[in-house]
């Protein structure tokens, strides 16, 4: 099973990196971009069959290591329920 974890700055916290990227996008012509949150993405291969167990473990990974909940939020999703190949 292959999962993707996304970690990004909390909405209420200033994201200087995202702001710099938004400004750069505006400079190259994407004037409609209102906000950018710059985060991280993790592709995680799990040797698990049980989808609920996998989601539970992924959330725990975020809480214990992958995200710093003081300043970051996270999202988890299962990309491929079976197989170990790349998505």
């Amino acid at each position, binding site marked *: 099973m292959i999962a993707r974890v996304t970690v990004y700055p909390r909405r209420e916290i200033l994201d200087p990196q995202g702001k710099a990227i938004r400004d750069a996008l505006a400079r190259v012509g994407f004037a409609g971009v209102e906000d950018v949150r710059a985060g991280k993405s993790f592709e995680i291969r799990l040797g698990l069959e049980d989808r609920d167990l996998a989601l539970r473990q992924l959330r725990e990974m975020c809480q214990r*290591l992958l995200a710093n909940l*003081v300043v970051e939020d996270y999202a988890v999703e299962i990309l491929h329920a079976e197989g170990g190949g790349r998505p």
Partner: protein
Amino acid sequence: MKCGVVVFPGSNCDHDVYHVWKHVLQQDATFLWHQDETVKDCDLVVLPGGFAYGDYLRAGALAALSPVMMAVKRHAAAGGLVLGICNGFQVLLEAGLLPGAMRRNASQRFVCADVWLRVERDDLPFTRGLRIGQLLRMPVAHAEGNYEDSPERLDALEAAGLVAFRYTSPAGELDPAWNPNGAARAIAGICNPERNVLGLMPHPERCAEEILGSTDGLAIFSGALATLRDLSPGSPGSPALPAAAVRVEVG
């Protein structure tokens, strides 16, 4: 008194801290490897600056889970002194020994400069040689020193009096122009409620000798030393402080 300086892969201020404790204060010092499972018989543990584990994932995040940090947590829980400087402060935050988190500097740049610090607490083990409102000049060198927490938790931190140092102007006033990283409420250093754990972004070990242009940082270390001596009265093998340290102590 024995100081253990933790060495993570990527630490780079470890020898500076060792030098201050060993040669400036003339005390026993040793290095603790990140895979050590105890802090040996150290009275003070210092987490030095650098880029522990390459700052992979987040500054301090992987170091916070290393074996030595489990020992540092036990040391802190038993009332032992712990000082985190720069990256060491980031490790303390990620380990949950101090509250809050670091974001990238608001400027998006690595900042390497001398800053002014205002002393907010003079009754911590590390700040007893200082007085409230005293200004210290210390160098900072970091990309993630933008201290952050929720407004409620910041209020609680302030209400509990756990802010030890703030960035100020040379006149000691809060001024965004003199906040090098955008830290919430100009926070440069905080302690835990028990007061035995201190973290700060500036580098006291880089300004602890006249030859470095300033001895403003020495008070942090000599304060810890004086505290440790008080905790073990009559302890043998504690030579008198050298002149520079005594001057800071009484200054």
